[in-house]
């Protein structure tokens, strides 16, 4: 049985470990920011790409909806502009809404380090490896948050977003966004694991990135697309996340009623994060055992 002093010491150790963990995340994130600041064109694109990426989506939707012809709300439950904007904003939280910034993210940050030969050393430093990985993705998580906030503000003030702004809807949509970010971090870690194992960016894009976009329903009505994509989209948790975000602000959902969308989102967000951490941990042990992390 532990004495009160032992218990206090154990608690202090845990706090110290948590402090070390956060310091490592902050240090790696700061370094990542410094690296990004040294690429001025990419930085400018990171900060504006979400708006530029919205332009082709809106113009296509504008032409496809008969150039402003009032669309029936029978399927989407809302007007076409609000439907597209909310889908785009929810997708921005995954960092893939804008086609302009499709080659960035935690996975690519780690992959770059692998090519340059610094990844193994970073991960062998006397610091929690998970903190190093999370720190590498911190820049992108912050960037995606910036995208979501700026898109929401721009849509509300300049594009006539038709949503119900009440404390309840704001709170609910914020909770949905938090879960989306949790899932986004989990997907980022999975993408990093795939990329570091296969060392092939095109394979990662084909297996993870592209299908996510294709089957998300961010810009289109899932019930209106051809099979087998319609069924496959219904198996994609991101589609429920986007549906939940739209539903939280407009009350209209496409796939399932809002509570079910929220339940699927909650389970898939936690599941994705837990699975990604487990996968990365197992792969890390293998990489270190076989020495394949430093080999490119």
């Amino acid at each position, binding site marked *: 049985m532990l004495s009160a002093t032992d218990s206090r010491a154990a608690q202090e150790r845990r706090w110290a470990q948590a402090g070390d963990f956060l310091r490592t995340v902050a240090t790696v994130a700061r370094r990542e920011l410094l690296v990004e600041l040294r690429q001025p064109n990419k930085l400018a694109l990171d900060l504006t790409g979400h708006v530029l990426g919205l332009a082709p989506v809106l113009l296509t*939707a504008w032409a496809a909806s*008969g150039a402003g012809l009032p669309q029936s709300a029978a399927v989407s439950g809302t007007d076409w502009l609000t439907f597209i904007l909310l889908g785009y904003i929810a997708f921005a939280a995954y960092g893939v809404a804008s086609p302009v910034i499709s080659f960035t993210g935690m996975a690519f940050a780690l992959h770059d380090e692998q090519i340059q030969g610094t990844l193994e050393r970073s991960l062998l430093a006397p610091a929690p490896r998970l903190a190093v990985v999370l720190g590498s993705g911190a820049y992108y998580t912050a960037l995606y948050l910036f995208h979501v906030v700026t898109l929401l503000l721009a849509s509300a003030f300049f594009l006539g977003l038709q949503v119900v702004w009440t404390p309840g809807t704001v709170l609910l949509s914020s909770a949905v966004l938090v879960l989306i970010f949790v899932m986004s971090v989990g997907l980022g870690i999975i993408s990093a694991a795939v990329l570091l194992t296969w060392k092939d960016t095109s394979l990662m894009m084909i297996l993870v990135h*592209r299908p996510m976009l294709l089957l998300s329903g961010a810009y*289109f009505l899932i019930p209106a697309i051809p099979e087998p994509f319609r069924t496959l989209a219904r198996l994609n948790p991101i589609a429920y996340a986007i549906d939940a975000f739209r539903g939280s602000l407009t009350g209209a959902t496409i796939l399932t009623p809002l509570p079910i969308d929220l339940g699927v989102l909650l389970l898939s967000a936690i599941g994705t994060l837990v699975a990604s951490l487990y996968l990365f941990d197992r792969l890390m042990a293998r990489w270190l055992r076989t020495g394949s992390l430093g080999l490119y």
Partner: protein
Amino acid sequence: MREKQDRAAGAPVPRAATGPAGPATLPLAFLHELVIVARYSLIQQQRTPTWIFNTSLTPFFLMAPLLFMATSFLGPGGAALERFTLLTGYENYLGYMVVPLLDATMTSTVYSNIGHTIRQEQRTGTLERTLMTLQFPISLILGRSLGFLVFVFWFAGTALLLVWLVFGLRLDVDPISAAVLLLLHLLLVYGVAFLMTSLFLWITDAFAVQMLFSRFVLLTLAGATYPVSLLPDWLQVVARLIPFTWLYELERAALLQAAPLAAIWQGLLVLAAMVAVLWLAAVTLFNAMLTRARRTGMLGMY
């Protein structure tokens, strides 16, 4: 012995080994160097066998969300389709989007691939040596472009097949107009690739500029998925300065409405002139960038 092995492997052979080319043999030497670089790039590509998945599926993945959007909002026989037909002159809304989207994704893939391989050489420290050993440094880009042509045809073929299978794409082609446009199209795509790749010799994060061009100019300003008449007047003028705007319109006419050469010759002349100017600009920029990189020693530094 080493030279023989290099030749067998398709690697670029140093100038000293080939000997200086006289004026009469210059075109032949240039052609020879182009083929060597093309072979070298094909050998490199073989090391990544996943190219087959990537090249076959990427265009479909890029096009499908926008086609799903069109299907969602237009649908067959809907009121919006009537309005769309009035607006664009095309009832075949899938073809209207597929033809330019295929152009845009193909162009983007060509210069991304060539640009990335050049950047990879810069990173691994072989770019400076490769460029110094070539008698015609320009053949590094042109040769790679030639090698990548195989993938371009595969890329376009599989994309069209998938779109036909999934969406039931219909085409109504005038073969002569299509053949002329294909030639101009390839010249345009490679001219842009040439211009873009030259940026890698100058800008460290040139991929960001390339990405911006792909998505904002090729997809948005050039009107890949909508008629440029929807844009404000001043932006329509800007759009008309982009050769891809003309290419998209001409290819839509030739591939969806079987427009004969006589119906599109004026547009073809404008496009041909733009392609010529583009190539001139690309060669000038490449030479300027190469001279600058050599003078400042930036070529070998990453």
